[in-house]
């Protein structure tokens, strides 16, 4: 992939990438830094991308790794097993944006990709490298915790 093609493809997805990073990291400055780091890493390794049609999946995965590293550095993630008994009420009492950010990362990853960044369930599963069924289960669980009933938007 040459610089021109990289630029074209990146321009087509950068808004989704930024939004994803913003929801993951919670603030605009960290999201912009994550975007910079992602582009840098992607640029460095794009020669190894054999199938350019997977560019979006590939660069989003890089972004998620960058965001996860940043979150790990800040030690904000909660393990799936750490959800408290009163989780539903706790999440319900938070503003939606904060509630999404407070979800365990396995759940927030799916919900951010699906409902805020506009990926299909299959794309989200590919990006996260998990089976589609697992992604669907996590999606249901996340929506239940957030008390979101998106109905038709689910397929948007």
């Amino acid at each position, binding site marked *: 992939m040459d*610089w021109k093609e990289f*630029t074209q493809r*990146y321009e087509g997805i*950068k*808004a989704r990438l*930024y*939004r994803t990073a*913003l929801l993951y990291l919670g603030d*605009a400055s960290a999201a*912009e830094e994550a*975007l*910079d780091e*992602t*582009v*840098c*890493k*992607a*640029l*460095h*390794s794009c*020669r*190894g*991308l*054999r199938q350019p049609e997977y560019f979006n999946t*590939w660069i989003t*995965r*890089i972004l998620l*790794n960058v965001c996860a*590293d940043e979150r790990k550095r800040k030690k904000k993630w909660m393990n799936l097993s750490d959800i408290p008994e009163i989780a539903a009420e706790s999440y319900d009492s938070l*503003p*939606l*944006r904060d509630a999404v950010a407070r979800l365990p990362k396995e759940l927030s990853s799916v919900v951010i990709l699906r*409902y*805020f960044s506009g990926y299909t369930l299959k794309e989200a599963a590919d990006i996260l490298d998990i089976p589609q069924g697992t992604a669907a289960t996590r999606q249901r669980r996340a929506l239940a915790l*957030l*008390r*979101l*009933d*998106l109905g038709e*938007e689910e397929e948007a």
Partner: protein
Amino acid sequence: MNRNDEYRRLMQELDALPVPDGSLRRAKRRERIRKYAVRPLSAVAAVLVLFTALINLSSDVAYAAAQIPGLRELVRALTFSRSLQDAVCNEYVQPVGLTESDNDVQVTVDYLILDEKNLTVFCRVESGKYPHLAAEPDFSFSLQEPCLLGCSVNNPDARNGELRSFSLNVSHGSIPSPVIFRLKLKDLDQSAADAAENYTPVYVAQVEFTLEPDLSLVARTRHFEVGRDVEIGGHKLRVRSIDILPTSMSLNVTEDEANTSALAALNFYAVTDRGDRFDTPRKGVTAHGDTHGNMTYLVESPFFYDAKSVTLCFTRADWRRKDAEPVRVDLVSGTAENLPSATRFIGARREGDDWVVTVLQNLDARQAFWQFFGGDGAPCTLLSSSTSVVPFTFPDLPVAPDGWVYEEYTLSDLSGDEVWLQPYVTDVWTAATPVETKIELKETGKE
């Protein structure tokens, strides 16, 4: 407002947010820097290989492995690294056996050694057309990208037919599989002929391999939480943890925020309860870290030694005062003020849109500078730095005296007539007797 209304409103807010511009431009610039920044590792390796080739040849480790058929040459090619030798002795090596050709140059990848932070590839170059070839490696990955630290050529003076090795280090993330390994071959005879001219490398061949190491054979990193403070040269360091891999041992430290100086370099060695000593690697990456005082220092690995404890012995620390005055270089008059005692200013010359600042540096004092600012206080970009006994920008000057080297810094984005250079080291602490701390190796989960 119910949750679904809140969702729609949040989506509207997100849609209205401006997407920051400039990531591509900044990434391109960083990539340009990285291309230059990684390569000097090869140059450092080239300096060290002559030194290291003379040692370790008669060690017990080398003798033991020499009894294994087919691996004798491999061990001989690894005298620069105790950890890699130990890995081979313990059969921690994966055979590959892939061959690629281009323009009458044939390259065969024979073996690789892989752990979660380091990949070393061994190959052989043959050619009937080009008797003297130099090889430049490049590694990349098809999907995930760990944070690359550097890529080193371990034996750059290897001749055609001899085993060559190349190492790749990462700081976080694991090295994934497959790995794309490219080798560009340079005709040294042609390069020498061109050297008097405007030198540009002449690549006569390029080959690419898709290496698929068996990840089930990659040893798990052994992680040990420590959480202990040590005082070194009047400053406090917290030893957070230790990671032991087959090819390196990492000491993860954090500087105390109250320290009046920042740590620039740390020398130490580790001794196991059985008396085996492990020193800083002689090649490649020896330390890495972030700008928040979190650093990782590497020593050779006791992975195969069944150690129950290690004693860390700190011998030297280089510190940089947080309030250290920067050096001002007047680019018009070619003068510098406030130089550190181990640094002599040679000059500054314009090269196109960039400036090259050259200094003569005492070898005992490590590198001279690490940060660069324009007259307006804005950081300028370090395109490359090089260390040599010959100053390329001032070719009329004599070779550097013993114990000194020329350092050249190529800077871009400079506006105005001056540049400010932040010294890398201001104070050196050397231990009369090493500061020791003993650590029991009781394995814990990863950080």
